[in-house]
């Protein structure tokens, strides 16, 4: 149609006009036909309204207009567990920063739900204090005063029906006074044990159901269960209350920024993908090390352990991103498809005794500080068999990765805080040098550093200056912080904004969660038959068992 009507005057502009007109025309026809089908009246008009809503394309938006930020529509956020650490240090400051960057709507509402007997004003002071203490962007009174108007506090316990009725009232008040239009997100910053209870209460008070044209979303943080069975049960409970598209599973260690950085590195470049396979890679090491102990999380951590806490979600997600094939697009569905594929191809070693390792930190010196062992931590049973260090070898049964072991390790009270993915390459098949020349040459490596100092390191050999021929390892380094912004948005800012915009792409889906448990369950089952995990001194890189595991394959853990 565009060809025949615009003829020789077919400039890009006139083309846009015709296509816009075509869209308008087709919208017209659909709403007309819906009128014809439904009896006239209030119902019919709302129906056609909904129809045209689907076809609404905002004329002020254009994909090539890259300057325009997306601002969340009218809504409020309800935080359960608002007095907790996560909320104080991350959620509240992230909300302030979003507001300060102008990405929250006018009339944004923030409701805290907690046990304390607070007035809205006391809650306000608490929020202000924490926002001021931890915000990333400068603290401005004007931004704060706008936010402050939308603050509410609801006092109560999770088993208190009256509290949820109050919450329901507060939410409708916000709809009325602040124009939040029935759009509300619920952030479950509470222990997973409480999820079912809170979900039930939300359902009972009618809060989980959205009215027409409005949305309700729920945000839950890991862990998603402690094995496949409980994960499914949790999913059943939550999806009986919220529909699946409204459930956002958050993995804040794996912020969208990090995921997109990995995707860009792998798929935007020519030079990495050709060697990203078993022909060149000898093995892959994925590490997430923490230098802290369990701190005040004894109640949560004991019985869960390092593998369930970290491997099931963070490390397996990182592994999936490293090992997956190129998605056909970066849309949520296509990305999930590739991750799911690779997760389903992961094989757990048959020889669990030799290819898994677990440890428990003992008394020792963490750098310059004397620290107690796990069994002496407050609130931990002296006979606890919970592991604070876990490592295992996994294989991927695909042509790309056949024969390449993936070693995953995580632990508390290790040498330092670091998360990285390292691809170690095979040695060159032939080295045209005297053997003395390459004695110091290690394997080439690509290291994707996730934290701290996010970036990429390449390690390769270079000649040592001087007359003798000698090759030694050197590093080439790229750091996001140095080449781009010094003040990149916090992961939580992006997470919260994505939820408010209803933009879920990179959150793990139920299927991914289930597949991950599938991988970990046999390992956990085996471990449960063993006694005490092998102790390791705090501040070191884990138990001897783990080093032996790699040595068996002729490999060594990197020293990150």
């Amino acid at each position, binding site marked *: 149609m565009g060809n025949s009507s615009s003829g020789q005057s077919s400039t890009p*502009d006139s083309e846009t*006009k015709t296509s*816009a007109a075509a869209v308008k025309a087709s919208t017209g026809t659909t709403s007309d036909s819906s009128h014809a089908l439904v009896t006239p009246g209030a119902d019919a008009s709302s129906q056609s*309204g909904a129809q*045209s*809503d689907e076809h*609404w394309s*905002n*004329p*002020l*938006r*254009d994909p*090539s*207009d*890259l*300057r*325009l*930020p*997306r*601002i969340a*529509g*009218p809504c409020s956020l309800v935080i359960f567990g608002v007095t907790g650490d996560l909320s104080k240090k991350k959620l509240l400051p992230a909300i302030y920063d979003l*507001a*300060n960057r*102008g990405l929250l*709507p*006018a*009339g944004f509402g923030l409701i805290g739900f907690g046990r304390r007997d607070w007035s809205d004003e006391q809650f306000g002071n608490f929020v202000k204090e924490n926002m001021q203490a931890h915000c990333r962007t400068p603290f*401005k009174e*004007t*931004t704060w005063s*706008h936010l402050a*108007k939308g603050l509410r506090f609801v006092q109560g316990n999770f088993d208190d029906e009256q509290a949820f009725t109050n919450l329901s009232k507060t939410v409708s008040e916000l709809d009325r*006074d*602040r*124009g939040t*239009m029935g759009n509300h997100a619920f952030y479950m910053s509470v222990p997973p044990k409480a999820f079912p209870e809170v979900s039930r209460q939300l359902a009972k008070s009618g809060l989980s159901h959205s009215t027409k*044209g409005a949305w309700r979303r729920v945000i839950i943080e890991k862990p998603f269960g402690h094995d496949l069975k409980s994960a499914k049960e949790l999913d059943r409970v939550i999806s009986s209350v919220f529909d699946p598209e409204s459930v956002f599973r958050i993995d804040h260690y794996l912020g969208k920024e990090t995921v997109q950085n990995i995707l860009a590195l792998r798929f935007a470049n020519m030079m990495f993908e050709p060697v990203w396979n078993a022909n060149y890679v000898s093995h892959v090491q994925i590490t997430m090390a923490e230098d802290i102990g369990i701190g005040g999380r004894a109640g949560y951590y004991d019985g869960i352990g390092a593998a369930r806490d970290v491997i099931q979600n963070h490390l397996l997600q990182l592994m999936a991103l490293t090992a997956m094939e190129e998605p056909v697009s970066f849309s949520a569905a296509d990305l999930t498809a590739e991750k799911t594929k690779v997760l389903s191809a992961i094989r757990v070693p048959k020889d669990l005794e030799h290819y898994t390792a677990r440890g428990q930190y003992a008394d020792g010196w963490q750098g310059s500080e004397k620290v107690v062992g796990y069994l002496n931590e407050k609130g931990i049973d002296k006979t606890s068999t919970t592991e604070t260090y876990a490592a295992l070898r996994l294989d991927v049964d695909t042509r790309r990765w056949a024969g390449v072991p993936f070693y995953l390790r995580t632990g508390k009270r290790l040498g330092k805080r670091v998360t990285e993915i390292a691809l170690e390459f095979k040695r060159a098949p032939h080295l045209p040098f005297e053997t003395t020349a390459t004695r110091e040459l290690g394997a080439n490596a690509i290291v994707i550093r996730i934290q701290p100092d996010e970036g990429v390191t390449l390690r390769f050999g270079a000649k040592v200056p001087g007359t003798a021929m000698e090759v030694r390892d050197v590093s080439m380094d790229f*750091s996001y912080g*140095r*080449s*781009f*912004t*010094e*003040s990149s948005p916090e992961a939580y800012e992006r997470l919260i904004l994505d939820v408010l915009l209803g933009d879920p792409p990179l959150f793990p889906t139920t299927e991914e969660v289930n597949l991950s448990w599938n991988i970990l369950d046999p390992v956990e089952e085996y471990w449960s038959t063993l006694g005490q995990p092998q102790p390791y001194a705090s501040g070191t890189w884990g138990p001897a068992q783990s080093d032996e595991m790699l040595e068996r394959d002729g490999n060594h853990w990197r020293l990150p």
Partner: protein
Amino acid sequence: MIVTLSQTTTSAISSKIENLHKERGEVALGRVLTMLICTTSDNLESTLETANEASREHPCRVIAIVDAERNKHEDPRLDAQVRFGADAGAGEIIILKPYGNLTRHLDTLVIPLLVPDAPVVAWWPTRVPEDPSKDALGAMARNRITDALRAPNPEAAFTALRAHWSSQDVDMSWTRLTRWRALAAALLDQPPHLAVVSARVTGQSHYLPVDLLAAWLAVRLEVPVTLDQKTSEHAITGIYLTREDSSVVSIERHNDEDQAMITQAGAQAQAIAMPMRTLEECLSEELRRLDPDEIYAEVINRGWGMIDHD
């Protein structure tokens, strides 16, 4: 740290920078671009302050060429200054003061000092060249940022810019609008999703961003847009969109307040924080994307004529 080099050469400057990098244990590889700034000594410090702020987001090497116009009849000579560390944001600053014949080939003057294999951005904070793409420095830049609003005669400057526009040029009058545009777009994201039938923009007389905002609305909405400009107003003060059911939604900001009011039929007016944009924010936004801005192109080439300007 500030090192002054009078009566110097570009190779002396290069080796000074190299030595300083070595001494200070820094690497220059992190610089993602070179920013060329054409300015005068009166504006130099404030301009560099802005550039320093922006460099925290985009580590760059800044090369400021000072008073080239003023000194073109002097004897040829080059004075320079190199700034590092606390005096230079997240990069380094080279200030060049060319005299005489040197002012006639500024391009070859800066070529030895550019960051290798990195884009070049040219910024004219006040004076606007007639044709940025033909300017000696502008020609080698991948992006050319002008600021007609701060030129001695903004309207004449912008007329010239429009006449000589090329796809790599952007004027900061456009950058100043982004918050307004974002709010307007966010407003139309919300139901009721009814077509807009007319629009009105209010603001200060002879203030370019007002005209550009109106032109953008005209291009995007394909509806009549009226301009309502008063000398008593300051900057942009409002956008009013009339929908097909003749309800009006508006965004207003008066008296340089830090907030805007959003008004919709059937709902309470809502305040939202919207402080005036600073020059640093505008410059950072410009450096964030170095590809041609197609929307801006459409606005100044097509939209501009759809509006009755003052």
